[in-house]
């Protein structure tokens, strides 16, 4: 429990760092810290495979790509673009409203899960997860969830073909 609190606090501080940093590169690095603490939390839940995948996919690939893009387009400090002359109502642009609604929906979903008990940890003990073994994950992934799994791989294939088409440049 003590370790959980430590890692959760680091994750929250890193998450705040992502949205409050003035430099985009710092945001990306805070995101990396956040992903690393999530991996630590997975290890504490006996899901070592998920932790390793979290590091490989998110820390190793996604954050690197984010950093790559930021560095290519220049990672200067962000300016304050708030306009004090605008009224509060005029500042509510469509992306902001959508973001706020989605955040509220997420909060509501988490709250609902906590109240009804579907999010409680009792159903996910280490033994039920077979100590996070690769075999346990693989058997579930290739039997019960084979259709979503294959659909995800088709999605990746489509992304890859799209990248090739864009890069062809003819």
């Amino acid at each position, binding site marked *: 429990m003590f370790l959980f609190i430590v890692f959760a606090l680091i994750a929250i501080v890193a998450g705040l760092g992502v949205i409050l940093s003035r*430099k985009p*590169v*710092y945001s990306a*690095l805070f995101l*990396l810290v956040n992903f690393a603490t999530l991996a630590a939390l997975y290890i504490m839940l006996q899901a*070592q*495979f998920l932790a*390793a*995948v979290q*590091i*490989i996919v998110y*820390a*190793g*690939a996604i*954050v*690197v790509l984010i*950093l*790559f893009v930021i*560095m290519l387009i220049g*990672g200067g400090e962000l300016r304050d673009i708030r306009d004090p002359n605008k009224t509060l109502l005029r500042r509510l642009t469509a992306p902001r409203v959508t973001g706020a609604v989605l955040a509220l929906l997420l909060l509501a979903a988490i709250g609902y899960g906590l109240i009804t008990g579907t999010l409680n940890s009792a159903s996910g003990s280490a033994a039920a997860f077979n*100590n*996070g*073994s*690769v075999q346990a994950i693989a058997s579930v992934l290739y039997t019960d969830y084979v259709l979503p799994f294959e659909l995800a791989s088709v999605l990746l294939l489509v992304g890859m073909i799209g990248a090739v088409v864009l890069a062809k440049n003819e």
Partner: protein
Amino acid sequence: MDYIRDFFINFAHSWTTWISGGLPGWAVTVVNFLLGGLILVMMPVIATLALTWMERKVIGRIQNRLGPNRVGPWGIFQAIADAVKMLIKEDIIPDRADRPVFNLAPILIFVGAAMLWAVIPFGRRMIGQDLNIGALYVVAIGSITTVAVLMAGWASNNKFALIGAFRVVAQLLSYEIPMVLSIGVVVLVVGSMRMGTIVESQWVPFCLVLPVAFITYVLAAIAETGRAPFDLLEADSEIVAGYFVEYSGLKFGWFYIAEYGNLMAVSAITTTLFLGGWRGPFAGAAPVLGPLYFIIKTVLVIFVLMWIRGTLPRFRIDQMLAFAWKVLVPAALVNLLWVAAALKLPVPQAVQYAVMLVGNLAILGVTLTLLGQSAKQHAKRHGLAGA
């Protein structure tokens, strides 16, 4: 005699018994974990001290020179002299560098190099932590290096450093795929990702069963450690020194240590996955021989890597990426499919291995033939000799 036969394990038991005399149980655990961690963290440093000397000697002999021979007999204290020089050098931070990121990058790259050692089995039951995802852990830790290099290159506020960092990303991401595919073949054959189990189940070294996976892994590993002929990220003649051009003193030292630590770790992983790790004659009866075999095999792999470095000229970046995507990835993928099919055959394991070996040799032959043909076409098109 029994004590000597399994010396390291028995010594660890004696040590634990000795300190439990005066300490409570939890303190014994803490002390032992700290000691284990200290040994693992020291591995890259030891690797640097030993390997810089070895590398200079080997490269010197390849280039028909003597190599270091001034400090101590055969120059064996050269590395220590270098270390002292590095320690007392001035620490320079560029004026417009991003200081926090600039200072964090060397630490992060060293952490990556040190953490690899946690899953490497030096002998039977001599492993920091036999994780059930050991092989995957190696890949995960390896991917941290990419971020550290990118941080160093960007924070230096230097164009050469940034170009070096971009090359690293292209190179490491491309070569990670054949590396993971060839590790995947071994995991498939063994049926477990535990490094201990992988060694235990190699009654014949996997380099003799899966030569394609072995060669692919070694080539990808050279690229991942950024050594010649894949040292595009620090190509001196093109971008000065790449991502660590602005570092000096001990911060440069961390990159240096991480480089040699990674070299030794990659050789140790090659030994574990493909050369049978600590297995060898009489290693079963006398486990004390295990670490000895392990070190001999690792040094042999390191020597081969140095040999390659001393022999081959540097690739061009487009050739290098094309080699990864057009040669290594297809070969590794076909190999993976073949091995997966061979494992389903209802025959004894030895026959399965033979089937795998035949398939591997066929893949190797086809790949080399296609490479030779394309080289001939290239030579003909450009009017070069050898067409």
